[in-house]
């Protein structure tokens, strides 16, 4: 088990209700230092609410919550301020000498291979570029805890693959404790040390991903874990209905969980 004493995140018996609707119940969650934890679940299962609680953006939860202060978050939409240049966005909220801030911003942009766009306006960036700026903005403050809320869901499949590799490399290099929320099973398997499957507001299952990195989708271990994970989500790959609803290749690469919802 991960070292819980130095962990950045500890939730015990956490619940969240909106009015009479219980979105999360009895969540126990700890993340070990340097661990890459992925939360997987179908749309509306409560995974985003859980991330919001951990990010400190939702303070209405009950239960015991302890979270690392030094954290940054990457949202699904890049949320760049259009009236600030790319590099100014990267150092948003940081205080200090402007030249020094610029130097730090450039270093962070270099890490995501976007040095050339440092002086561009955000509205001129592509979706993938904007999301890389958002990642640079999260990394520049050297967080202990990195939170990502479906960061690649809005990107095209090809860009998404590149971004997954890049995030995996950056997290390894910076030894970050990472919490990553997604509905993409493949993405989870490519990145995670541990996967939590959230279903109807509860942690339904935990998967330890003991595969070697970098990971290979064709690997036997990958395939069997993938099947297990999909079954946990109620999707069978041989499910004729799911296959008919969307071409199999498409559903495997993009949004398998939504096929599951449709199938139900």
């Amino acid at each position, binding site marked *: 088990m991960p070292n819980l004493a130095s962990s950045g995140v500890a939730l015990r018996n956490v619940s969240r209700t909106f009015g009479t609707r219980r979105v999360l119940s009895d969540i126990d969650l700890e993340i070990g230092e340097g661990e890459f934890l992925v939360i997987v679940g179908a749309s509306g299962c409560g995974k985003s609410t859980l991330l919001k609680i951990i*990010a*400190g*953006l939702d303070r209405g939860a009950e239960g015991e919550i302890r979270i690392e202060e030094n954290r*940054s*978050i990457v*949202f699904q*939409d890049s*949320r760049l*301020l*259009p*009236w*600030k240049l790319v590099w100014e966005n990267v150092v*948003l*909220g940081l205080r200090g000498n402007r030249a020094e801030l610029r130097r730090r911003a450039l270093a962070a942009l270099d890490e995501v291979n976007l040095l050339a766009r440092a002086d561009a*306006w*955000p*509205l*001129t960036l592509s979706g993938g570029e904007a999301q890389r700026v958002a990642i640079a*903005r999260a990394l520049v403050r050297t967080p202990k805890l990195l939170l990502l809320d479906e960061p690649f869901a809005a990107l095209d499949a090809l860009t998404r693959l590149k971004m997954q590799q890049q995030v995996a490399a950056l997290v390894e290099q910076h030894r970050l404790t990472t919490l990553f929320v997604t509905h993409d099973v493949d993405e989870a398997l490519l990145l995670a040390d541990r996967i939590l499957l959230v279903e109807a507001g509860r942690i339904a299952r935990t998967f330890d991903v003991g595969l070697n990195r970098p990971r290979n989708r064709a690997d036997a271990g990958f395939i069997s874990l993938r099947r297990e994970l999909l079954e946990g989500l109620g999707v069978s790959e041989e499910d004729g209905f799911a296959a008919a609803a969307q071409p199999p290749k498409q559903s495997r690469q993009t949004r398998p969980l939504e096929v599951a919802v449709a199938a139900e």
Partner: protein
Amino acid sequence: MSLATVSTSSSAADQSAAGTWQVPRFVRRLIVPVSLLVIWQVLASYGIINRRFSSSPVDIIAALWKLAVNGQLFDSLWISLVRAFLGLALGGSLGLLAGLVAGLSRLGEDALDSTIQAIRTLPFLGLVPLFILWFGLGETPRILLVALGTFFPIYLNVFKGIRGVEERLIELGRSYGLNRWELIRDIILPAALPNALVGLRYSLGIAWLVLVIAEQINATSGLGWLIIKASELAQTSVIMMVLAVYALIGILADAIVRLIETRALRWQRSFQGA
């Protein structure tokens, strides 16, 4: 039928390919207004229309020349511009202040908004007699009238701009540790700026409009006074000349704000029109 289609399209292609002389766009746009002016002048010259009622382009230019040479035009123009500027500066800055207070805080909105909305429904030009009663016949009522007219567009647009800031950007600012002042400076104000500039454009138009009225009441200077004097002497050409000057200044003011917009909003990559 098909032959005709072929021949027209090929002749158009020939024209552009050979670089045939084409009428420049600005000339094409001038054709209608210039023709109208010429027709107007011809009709006036042959006495078909009454010059006392409608003057003529040549008379108007003559009037412009005369008043420009004796200095009356520029004196009047200057005093009108000063009044417009002072009124706009006063009304605009109060509108900006009120918009910020009401936009940034619930308490400010509750305190100000209903009152301002109530006053806004008054036809403020109807206040002219009251303003004269309260503030006398000097410059004060005129400048205050301009200030009152320009206050509302700025207030409304600043308020709307601030309230229109996307919640997700506020959330971003909060999660990246911006304090209240930084949130206002880095997110709320820049996001509200496009709206505020729209308010400024409206206000400029209104400032000018108010002056036409305000300067016709008991004034002894300004463009509005020039109109009143000309109307007493039945100088149609002077009245029309002053109207043309009003229009020209209006166009110039609008161009200045547009220039400010393209400078201040150069981050926008919005729809440029098709």
